[in-house]
């Protein structure tokens, strides 16, 4: 997983509430057996008409074509657990999403892919949305170590983040590798469970 330390880039405003993962990547793109190449499906129905014409979606506008950040409305990423949603965002170049709140599974999935989801207050979102709407001149900087968002006018905002998740992002840690270091604890757990709940070790 690519490390996340600092990020500097254009932020696209997407103020809609309840952007669901079906919107982020519709079902026809879930038939892939790869993690890559999903950027063409990103926000597909919002970007393309049924007969294949571009709709001038925010990420297709010249100012935002190279956006690395999305400033989003509340409950971003609700619905389906499909990790294709963060894969598609990443494939487009998005490394950070800032919102009032995120749906749980999507939030988790971001961290597994080197994407930083930042939760801030409604008031801060309103300011950042305003910054983002100023187009390609409005560069937003993120410093994960310091937990700071720096707006185009130089003002900084602090954000909270779980310490363990922060460490994993900064160091680009492989979760599975970390857990496998605890193999003996898993072994012990299993042997205790085998004794106390033997039926869990017979199926399926």
């Amino acid at each position: 997983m690519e490390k996340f330390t600092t990020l500097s880039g254009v932020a696209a405003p997407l103020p809609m509430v309840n952007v669901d993962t079906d919107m982020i990547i519709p079902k026809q793109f879930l038939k892939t057996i790869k993690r890559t190449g999903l950027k063409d499906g990103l926000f597909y129905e919002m970007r393309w008409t049924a007969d294949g014409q571009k709709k001038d979606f925010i990420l297709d506008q010249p100012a935002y074509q190279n956006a690395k950040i999305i400033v989003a409305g509340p409950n971003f990423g609700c619905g389906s657990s499909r990790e294709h949603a963060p894969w598609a965002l990443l494939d487009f170049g998005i490394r950070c999403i800032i919102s009032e709140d995120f749906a749980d599974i999507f939030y988790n999935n971001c961290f597994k892919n080197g994407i930083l989801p930042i939760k801030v207050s409604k008031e801060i979102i309103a300011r950042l949305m305003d910054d983002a709407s100023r187009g390609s001149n409005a560069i937003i900087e993120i410093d994960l170590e310091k937990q700071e968002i720096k707006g185009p006018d130089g003002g900084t905002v602090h954000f909270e983040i779980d310490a363990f998740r922060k460490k994993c992002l900064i160091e680009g840690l492989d979760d599975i590798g970390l857990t496998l270091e605890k193999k003996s604890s898993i072994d012990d757990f299993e042997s205790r469970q085998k004794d106390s709940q033997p039926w869990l070790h017979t199926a399926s």
Partner: protein
Amino acid sequence: MAFRKKAASPPEPPKPRTLFEKVWDAHVVDRQDDGTCVIYVDRHLVHEVTSPQAFEGLRMTGRKVRRPEATIAVADHNTPTTTGAMDDESRIQVETLESNVAEFGVPYFDMNDARRGIVHVIGPEQGLTLPGMTIVCGDSHTSTHGAFGALAFGIGTSEVEHVLATQTLIQKPAKNMRVAVEGSLPIGVTAKDVILAIIGRLGTAGGTGYVVEYAGRAIREMTMEGRMTVCNMSIEAGARAGLIAPDETTFKYLDGRPFSPKGGAWDLALGQWRRLPSDRNATFDSQLDLLASDIPPMVTWGTSPQDALPITDVIPDPANAPDENRREAWARSLAYMGLTPGTRLVDVPIDRVFIGSCTNGRIEDLRAAAEIARGRKVAAGVSAMVVPGSGLVKAEAEKEGLDKIFIEAGFEWRLQGCSMCLAMNADRLEPGQRCASTSNRNFEGRQGRGGRTHLVSPAMAVAAAIRGTLADVRDFQ
């Protein structure tokens, strides 16, 4: 010098715990100082759409599946509901699953297996879902299994890989919410109406960060199928999982299932399962109370499951929305849905009806639907289909003659699978088509690009099919 005995303070009584806390505590493998835990996973359900990249990850790192026997794989999302062929991409995905389960030794219900079906239908049906378990799947509707008092939640593909490799997940405990539905449900009101009413109250993000325990008489009086419908849609309120305390209804359902414990193991399990319900005085972080008598048959009008209203209501006016966010969302929903404020819901014409999915594709759902369909006809111009949740549901329905009732009424009787709940196979809405659907999501494009979904119970879906408009099932009883 004599030892003086210290006055021993009486032992602290154990802290009352919720069902969630009991299941969580029993699965902690490791706890870091910051509260992050490694949680053991008892059962892992795998399907073709969210697993290929996870198996590929194992291959690239040379890792194995730690406990293939705790895992079960099945193809459900892409599979056709007719005898026709799959499109190439779907076929490749199913074949990829087949080669992955063969390579890693994971048990698999293949395409010709009569037990094949939607993961969340077959887990309980086979007794692979048991009280007190932790169950995960790369699918958000894994919350279904909470109906058995199992902590069950959806995960992403990276976490699927994590579970395959380690049989664990890295998690922090969720907050705990209790939703109580007191009293008995009125005639014509089902589990689907209950959960739509709950989501309407909580909102689509109201459960974020929580595991919701459903309680109260109305929940206790539900069958396991009804309880699964309730828990299934927990995610539509943002909750990570839904839970219902296991009781005699649960145990009766599980007794004798193929993978349920047998003999002495059954007795041992039963003793433990009876201790799972939340302790009296256990504390919840949040509580919502509803009266069953206040819940009518429900229908969604918009593009979020929280847009649920009694069937007797009218399409709402964005001008009356409680806040600016909702006003915009409602206006967008109405434009997408092609609806005008003030229209009575029962006057909204429909083109399609879909009965099925992990929400409402079980035998009891089909019985409830058939009861309304019996001796009636699908309205002219409406195309209606019934898709059983599993091969065994289909066989049972056919044994009971339900298929004939549906076919005589003008419904199509299809093969099992996820089908038009998410339209990954050939079953989908055409742009502008309006559907009364027993599925779980009315998102834009969910059932096909430009398709308009109204979520309802199975009986309400049949009522709509017969009337040709959204309809109140109580007029048919």
